[in-house]
């Protein structure tokens, strides 16, 4: 019935009912008509920030908003971003391109309604576009949309047209993948600079398969199947995120049977046996990489250490990324093929990479003038080979990465400090560009264009994660620009390949791991095929009774 879900056998073993359990057993079932039949409990490490799609930053929030809101169309399983091929109709029943393909007209599903019963209308699409692209809103998706889209016009209540600015190959993906239509009748009166403070940001009204039910901060978020969803009722009737303050606690809840699904297990957790929980491989889209700061703290002078390409390459060779990846994320230890996630269509497994070779690394360091000192640290002109790695304290996976890197580099004579910073300090340091190495983690969007934000000259000064090391290489810049404007996938691929290889050779960063994430799922779950970049999008199709109903639940049903 409650927390004994995980182990029905034990429940009976302790027949002498312990005080705590007995209490719930006696009172808990009185009048309890609910079974957990259609309910899915997802264990989440950390709370959502806001449930307002234009301003949602955290993955936890996206899991909710993606199920509460519906976009015009959904990307296909092949994650094609270069055209609308493979995309399936959602809010829009169909769409048609103008002859010059500079505009696309969407025909909305007439049965689509907001969860308050109001029909979804073309005006809502136009309203959402205006809101996303309003500079007062500060939506990063909005910025991308505005870059390719000029405006949205409405021809009738169910028809609207998006007008593109230029023939960017990914314009359909950028617009439709980014824009979430919003209810104009609710949001039109909210001032654009106070959207985060509006009730809507905590209790959204969407048009997706699930309607928002409640959000108890730091405890749970609950959504339930919408009354009449125009694309068919979901099998899972209720989804609840139970919020733990940190990853380990969240994982615990799945092992104790208090929750059904956790997104990430560490290799140790995944390999330890647990009743009622099975590890599930997710095709991840996560990429972890270390970024060298190319310049001296906050100035435009070259970085005293990492201004030197040979040193960057030597340090790359000293890292055993296979071991690192195996320890941190995934027993199979997947090392990236290059500066991209292998889930992208532009992925290329044939690039040249510096090998892991400690001896070669040592020789390279020797030849660069870094001589081993008595204290097992290398020196050059009296200066030690010392630097720090910065990671945010909120990311356990990156902190652990830094610990392993620190030790591996110590083996070749580098004195490395790991600085674990809270969000604030991290933000401050990134802004001021005061760091030696920072470890980044991206959840690759389906589009390979992320490489531009990460490494192109034009991204410098765009803040935060955009090219934090201020790397600038004309070869890379032009290859990326060519790829972004290439008309065909084949052409784009060739350009991306040039950019990737240039990055690998120049080593402005080290691409560390690309986990095949192992999730933990209760054996009562019947999982469908999971989308590699967003496992939660398939939740409506999951089954939650499973083959082994729990003792407690069976007891509840008998009542």
């Amino acid at each position, binding site marked *: *019935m*409650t*927390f*004994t879900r995980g182990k029905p056998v*034990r*429940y009976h073993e*302790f027949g002498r009912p*312990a*005080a*705590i*359990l007995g*209490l*719930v057993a006696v*009172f*808990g079932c*009185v*009048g*309890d*008509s*609910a079974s*957990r039949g259609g309910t899915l409990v997802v264990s989440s490490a950390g709370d959502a920030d*806001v449930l307002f799609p234009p301003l949602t*930053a955290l993955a936890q929030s996206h899991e909710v908003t993606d199920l509460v809101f519906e976009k015009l169309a959904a990307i296909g399983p092949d994650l094609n971003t270069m055209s609308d091929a493979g995309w399936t109709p959602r809010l829009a029943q169909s769409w048609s391109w103008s002859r010059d393909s500079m505009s696309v007209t969407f025909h909305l599903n007439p049965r689509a309604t907001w969860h308050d019963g109001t029909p979804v209308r073309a005006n809502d699409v136009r309203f959402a576009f205006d809101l996303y692209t309003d500079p*007062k809103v*500060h939506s*990063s998706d909005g910025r991308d949309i505005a870059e390719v889209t000029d405006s949205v016009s409405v021809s009738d209540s169910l028809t609207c047209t998006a007008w593109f600015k230029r023939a960017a190959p990914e314009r359909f993906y950028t617009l439709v993948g980014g824009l979430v239509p919003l209810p104009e009748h609710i949001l039109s009166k909210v001032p654009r*600079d106070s959207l985060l*403070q509006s009730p809507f*940001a*905590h209790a959204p009204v969407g048009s997706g398969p699930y309607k928002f039910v409640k959000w*108890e*901060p*730091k*405890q*749970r978020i609950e959504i339930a199947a919408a009354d009449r969803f125009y694309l068919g009722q979901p099998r899972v009737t*209720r989804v*609840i995120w*139970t919020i*733990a*303050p940190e990853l380990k*606690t969240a994982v*615990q*809840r799945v*092992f*104790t049977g*208090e929750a059904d699904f956790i997104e990430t297990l560490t290799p140790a957790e995944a390999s330890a046996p647990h009743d009622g929980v099975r590890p599930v491989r997710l095709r991840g889209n996560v990429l972890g990489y270390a970024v060298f700061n190319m310049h001296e703290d906050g100035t435009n002078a070259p970085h005293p250490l990492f201004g030197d390409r040979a040193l960057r390459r030597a340090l790359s060779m000293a890292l055993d990324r296979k071991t690192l990846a195996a320890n941190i994320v995934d027993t199979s230890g997947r090392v990236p093929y290059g500066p991209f996630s292998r889930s992208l269509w532009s992925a290329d497994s044939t690039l040249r990479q510096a090998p892991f070779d400690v001896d070669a690394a040592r020789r390279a360091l020797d030849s660069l003038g870094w001589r081993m000192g008595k204290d097992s640290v290398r020196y050059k002109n009296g200066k030690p080979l010392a630097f720090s790695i910065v990671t*945010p*304290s909120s990311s356990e996976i990156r902190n652990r990465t830094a610990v392993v890197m620190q030790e591996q580099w110590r083996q070749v004579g580098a004195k490395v400090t790991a600085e674990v910073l*809270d*969000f*604030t*300090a*991290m*933000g401050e340091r*990134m*802004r001021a560009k005061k760091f030696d190495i920072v470890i980044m983690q991206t959840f690759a969007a389906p589009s390979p264009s992320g490489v531009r934000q990460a490494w192109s000259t034009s991204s410098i000064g765009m*803040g*935060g*994660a*955009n090219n934090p090391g201020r790397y600038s290489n004309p070869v890379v810049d032009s290859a990326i620009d060519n790829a972004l404007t290439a008309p065909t996938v084949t052409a784009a691929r060739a350009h991306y390949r040039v950019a990737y290889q240039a990055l690998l050779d120049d080593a402005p960063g080290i691409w560390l791991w690309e986990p095949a994430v192992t999730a933990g799922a209760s054996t009562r779950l019947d999982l469908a095929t999971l989308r590699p970049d967003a496992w939660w999008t398939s939740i409506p199709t999951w089954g939650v009774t499973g083959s082994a109903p729990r003792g407690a639940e069976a007891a509840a049903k008998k009542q």
Partner: protein
Amino acid sequence: MTRLRPFLLARAGHALTVLVVIVTLVFVLFRLTPGDPFLARSQEHATEEEHAAFRARWGYDRPIAVQYVKWVGNFVSGDFGWSHSAQRPVREVLATAFVNSTLLMIPAFVLGWLGAVALGTWQAFRQGRWLARASETVAIGVLSIPDFVMALAALWVFAFRLRLAPSGGMVDVALHDSLTLAGRTADVVAHLALPALTLAVVVMFAVSRYHRAAVLGVLHEDYVRTARASGAAESDVVRRHVLPNALGPAIAVAGILLPGMFAGGVFVEKVFAWPGMGRTLVDAVLGRDFELVQAIVVVSTVAIALGSALADIVAVTFNPRVQLDT
């Protein structure tokens, strides 16, 4: 209770001074530390202009003195501000955290305190016998276990191995709403059990030592002998003569301990994922959530002052001889 009034007035004045000093100190110091709520929240894709717009929108770009005056004005008029780390009104965040903490701390404290009085009294009466001595040794042992270690052990044994209690949180998220009132109460009690008992054990052994010493002091007093000589039963002796005279230290400790638990419970809150004040404070400080931190500081300081004043008042009602020391 006439002798209480001047005492309470003096106490209030004293507490107010402390409050103003602490609140001002925290306000200034916290705003001088690097960072602000914006940077704490969105480091990844934000530009300088957005940051500037944010600071202007919330007035963080103005001189600290101006911000302080404005904050005091708002606070006094009941507007506690906006919590950027929780994206909710501070009042709401604080109320939730406070209620949650109260739900955990009060039962834990009451249980622990009563246990302490019972244990301490028993130990004093059985002074020197092997069981009492053994229990005193156990007390020192238990007091040597940090609360988070004890919490981890309880979690491991009772939640993880034996599955006798849930591992954390406040309710069974899937079932809670569909239960009857009795069921919901039982659900909360079940989730409360491990963290509350852990804290209760800590409180019990911490307070029992003071209480045991106090009872020992009273036990050899002549009036206890008088009571016995007049034929009072042992239970009467304890209830009417020993306890009223011996409870002073236990009450005084309570006044200090209880407000402290609201913040000091953070370790146990962390282990059992209980969304109380301690965790809220840590999140608020890490998130540079100026308004929320200020509000927590005010509430804690007031609670602390109230706690010790209340303890004094209770002590006075128990013991007419107590001198009220302002």
